[in-house]
């Protein structure tokens, strides 16, 4: 084995430039792979985390827009019925016994917490201008427990809501548009035409434009008052699980027990998750393309080396090297190129990722970041080196096999 390795080493060192070029092919392939994957998954993780903090694992609500059986269908089942353009009934969105349901859900050991809330579309009055948004009536302490709201506060305290009856905690983007700061009053109009004046006691920033620009939090009772509803009026229950990947199964279970629509976060964020999948597909396809190009480079160089080493191969076989020994010599060369190239690629990838993580980036109104989020998960480095070595092994295999099957007589006689 050692003699095979030392012959392979000598061949590599005999043409340092050629070996270096082959190595750099792998290095760039792996380097770009690591950098791209780190950036993409950094972005994915960042947005996923944002979405997770701002959306519940399971959202329970009463689905009134869902398809319902028409009265004609009920009276004449199995007949040929035509109902054109059915519309939903005017139903209350109230979840009956919401507090009891929340209490029952909380008893499940898989559940971290369940927060009943109600929300309403509202218009925020800004002088003559009305801004569209929504307002969520929550038990602020429960909400903080589930979504860590207090860590997102930019001004004021969440406790302010407990001490102020008509208090309001507002999203930072909304507050900025309305030029409000803590202690100011804002007038809010509901779709039913009720107008009420609320006091801003805090400003939060989730980091996600679609939340910060439209949402406010208030006490449950405040929102019930705006809507003119009773104290049992709750429209949503937000559930947080211990393991968020159980959401899908748990949602089905909750829906069948309580009869209300239970939507898991994967369904709710389907577009976002599809985006993540597409980003991953792009990253991997570009990287694999780079590696295949590097693989062809190795294939070519190895083929050339083998062609120029025909005499050597013949003499090695004549003096007692078996086909597998000769293949081993060239396979070793391609694996050494692959291994060193990949390790250099990981270093290059790390440097690129690090530079990217320093690059200033303005997320604008959509997401509030000042530098690109980059993941430094060691898993990608492991994948990188496995990819690199595997590609070179595949690229090296065919020429090496060919070298092993060279017929020494043909070469020796052919001269």
């Amino acid at each position, binding site marked *: 084995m050692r003699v095979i390795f030392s012959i392979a080493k000598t061949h590599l060192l005999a043409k340092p430039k050629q070996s270096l070029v082959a190595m750099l092919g792998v290095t760039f392939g792996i380097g770009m792979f690591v950098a791209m994957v780190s950036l993409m998954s950094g972005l994915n993780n960042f947005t996923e985390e944002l979405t997770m903090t701002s959306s519940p694992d399971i959202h329970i609500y009463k689905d009134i827009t869902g398809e319902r059986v028409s009265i004609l269908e009920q009276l004449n089942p199995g007949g040929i019925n035509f109902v054109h353009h059915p519309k939903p009934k005017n139903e209350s969105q109230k979840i009956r016994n919401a507090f009891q349901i929340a209490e029952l859900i909380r008893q499940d050991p898989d559940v971290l917490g369940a927060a009943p809330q109600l929300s309403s579309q509202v218009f925020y009055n800004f002088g003559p201008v009305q801004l569209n948004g929504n307002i969520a009536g929550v038990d602020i302490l429960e909400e903080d427990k589930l979504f860590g709201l207090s860590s997102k506060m930019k001004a004021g305290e969440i406790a302010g809501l407990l001490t102020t009856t008509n208090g309001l905690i507002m999203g930072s983007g909304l507050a900025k548009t309305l030029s409000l700061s803590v202690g100011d009053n804002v007038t809010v109009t509901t779709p039913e035409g009720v107008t009420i004046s609320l006091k801003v006691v805090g400003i939060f920033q989730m980091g996600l434009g679609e939340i910060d620009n439209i949402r406010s939090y208030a006490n449950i009772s405040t929102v019930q008052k705006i809507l003119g509803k009773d104290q049992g009026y709750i429209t949503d229950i937000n559930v947080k699980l211990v393991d968020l990947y159980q959401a899908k199964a748990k949602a089905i279970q909750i829906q069948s027990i309580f009869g209300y629509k239970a939507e898991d976060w994967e369904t709710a964020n389907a577009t976002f998750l599809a985006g993540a999948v597409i980003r991953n597909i792009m990253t991997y396809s570009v990287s694999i393309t780079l590696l295949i190009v590097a693989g062809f480079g190795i294939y070519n160089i190895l083929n050339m080396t083998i062609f120029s080493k025909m005499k*050597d191969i013949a*003499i090695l076989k004549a003096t007692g090297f078996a086909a597998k020994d000769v293949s081993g010599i060239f396979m070793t060369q391609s694996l050494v190129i692959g291994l060193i190239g990949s390790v250099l690629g990981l270093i290059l990838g790390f440097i690129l990722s690090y530079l990217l993580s320093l690059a200033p980036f303005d997320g604008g109104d959509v997401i509030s970041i000042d530098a690109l989020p980059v993941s430094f998960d060691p898993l990608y480095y492991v994948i990188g080196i496995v990819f690199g070595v595997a590609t070179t092994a595949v690229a090296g295999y065919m020429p090496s096999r060919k070298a092993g099957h060279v017929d020494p007589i043909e070469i020796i006689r052919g001269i």
Partner: protein
Amino acid sequence: MKEIILETKGITKYFHEPQTFQVLKDINLKVVKGEFLSLVGKSGCGKSTLMYLLSTMDTDYEGILEINGENLTGRRADYLAGFRNQHIGFVFQFHFLLPEFTSLQNVMIPALKLGKYPESKIKKRAMEKLEMLGIADQAEKMSSKLSGGQQQRVAIARALINDPALIMGDEPTGNLDSTNSDIVFDIFRKLTRDFGQTIIAVTHDDDFAANSDRIIEMSDGKIVG
């Protein structure tokens, strides 16, 4: 009766390209230990083909080949490679050294492959062989930097490193001037006489053949004398 080292029984071989042509016809040959044998004949008579066949590199033939009393016909290529490594040494017309290695490394490689001795011992043995051939001073030179005669002697040293019973030469002096030819011949002579090794050499060199123990002349794929 001397020990028989190599024996062929009814060896026949065809070339199929460009058309089927019988190149060897019923070759029966016995070679005894310590013999210095020359294989002569006109170009195309099949002498080189016979030698490659005897060397186990060519396995596409009919008949039986025995070396050291072991039947090698029908053996797998990898087994034959191992067998060559241990029992057969080669000397070619064109010297076929590995150009990126020093003379010493070239000599050592077949022994490293065999792995019978530790590397330090192999190095010592390789130096002894080079010394015996009078080129110990060239040991650390790259083999591509040597003269033709020196290269041929390195190749002979390489052929000897595993103490093979059989040494095969394909026109070992064909590319050398008369001085170097004489040196190579003397080495061969010494090997058979002093070390009991057997040599089979294909040659065009009449002097070389005339001085060997036995001449086998071939014509049209048959042994004629």
